[in-house]
């Protein structure tokens, strides 16, 4: 039983590509055959996050236009051999692909893979429509900011209008110490506003930037709390029941002060 999941957000820069790469890695590490598809035609980046940018010969548009076979365009990951990337074209634009073509491509890929993850471009135009065309369900990525949550709300409406099942939410760049002092929306505030189920919280951590610099997604890093957060989301996506949330320690100035004075640090969970 294979499945296509689109990773979308509306707003740009909230971490769709990072999430797509890391969930792809985490699902593959759990033994599934996974393909990640970069649907951001003209602005590809999933290749860079995965460290596969030097291996691209053919891309998604080549496959759709029949210039190569799907197998020729798929790039196998260097570190986990059940993970493949289908890169976006860099010199074309979104109009090169139609939703129908995308749906056919995804259906073809679902015959080969357990999971097909589609990294959706920002916006609500054709790139978005192409990305959801073949999807069985959607994950919405947001950050705890007014602009990102507003756009997430809009996207949730569009996903529901497209008659996909209820999407699930990933809250990215979460800062527990800011929540503790009342300067960041908490998980419950965001869930109250967006009213969809939560599938995970990713702490804001420099590991994400370091791993992007190296082209090696943080989900490979067994010691990283962010990597662990992604691995747990992958287990939840795969239907594993009751995957516990990790306790999140505050690391800000005030919690350090509290620790010195013997007050236990407030804890959240990812």
């Amino acid at each position, binding site marked *: 039983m294979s499945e296509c999941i689109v990773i979308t957000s509306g707003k740009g820069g909230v971490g769709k590509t990072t999430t797509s790469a890391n969930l792809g890695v985490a699902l593959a590490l759990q033994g599934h055959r996974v393909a990640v598809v970069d649907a951001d035609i003209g602005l590809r980046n999933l290749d860079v996050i995965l460290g596969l940018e030097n291996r691209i010969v053919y891309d998604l548009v080549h496959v759709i236009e029949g210039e190569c076979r799907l197998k020729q365009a798929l790039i196998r990951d260097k570190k986990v051999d059940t993970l493949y990337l289908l890169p976006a074209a860099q010199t074309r634009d979104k109009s090169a692909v139609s939703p129908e073509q995308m749906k056919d491509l995804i259906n073809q890929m679902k015959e080969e893979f357990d999971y097909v993850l589609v990294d959706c471009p920002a916006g609500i135009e054709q790139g978005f429509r192409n990305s959801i065309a073949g999807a069985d369900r959607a994950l919405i990525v947001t950050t705890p900011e007014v602009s990102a949550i507003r756009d997430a*709300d809009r996207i949730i409406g569009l996903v529901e209008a497209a008659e996909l099942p209820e999407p699930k939410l990933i809250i990215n760049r979460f800062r527990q110490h800011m929540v503790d002092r009342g*300067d960041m*929306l908490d998980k419950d505030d965001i869930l109250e*506003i967006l009213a969809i189920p939560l599938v995970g919280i990713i702490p804001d951590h420099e590991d994400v930037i370091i791993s992007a610099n190296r082209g090696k997604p943080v989900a490979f890093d067994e010691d990283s709390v962010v990597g662990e957060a992604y691995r747990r989301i992958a287990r939840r996506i795969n239907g594993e029941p009751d995957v516990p949330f990790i306790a999140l320690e505050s690391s800000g100035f005030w919690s350090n002060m509290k620790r010195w004075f013997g007050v236990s640090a407030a804890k959240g969970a990812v």
Partner: protein
Amino acid sequence: MSFFSRMFSNKGSKDDAKARLKLLLVHDQVDLTPAQMEAMKAEVIEVIGRYVEIDRDSIDFKLERSGGDVALVSNVPVRRVTARAV
């Protein structure tokens, strides 16, 4: 926010974010301009005012959302009932 104002206030910016978002999302969804909202409020109040005497200065009239549903929530204090039940 300065260090001192934070020392003396327990309220963070989160509450502002939440209040602004709630209003924003309702209006994104309903797509009524502030002028249209005012016009609707004036008309509704006009109708209510034909039947009961109301305190026009303390009327609460706004769109609210809980979950995915939008509701028009209004609180109209009645001073005196002027019309008799038919």
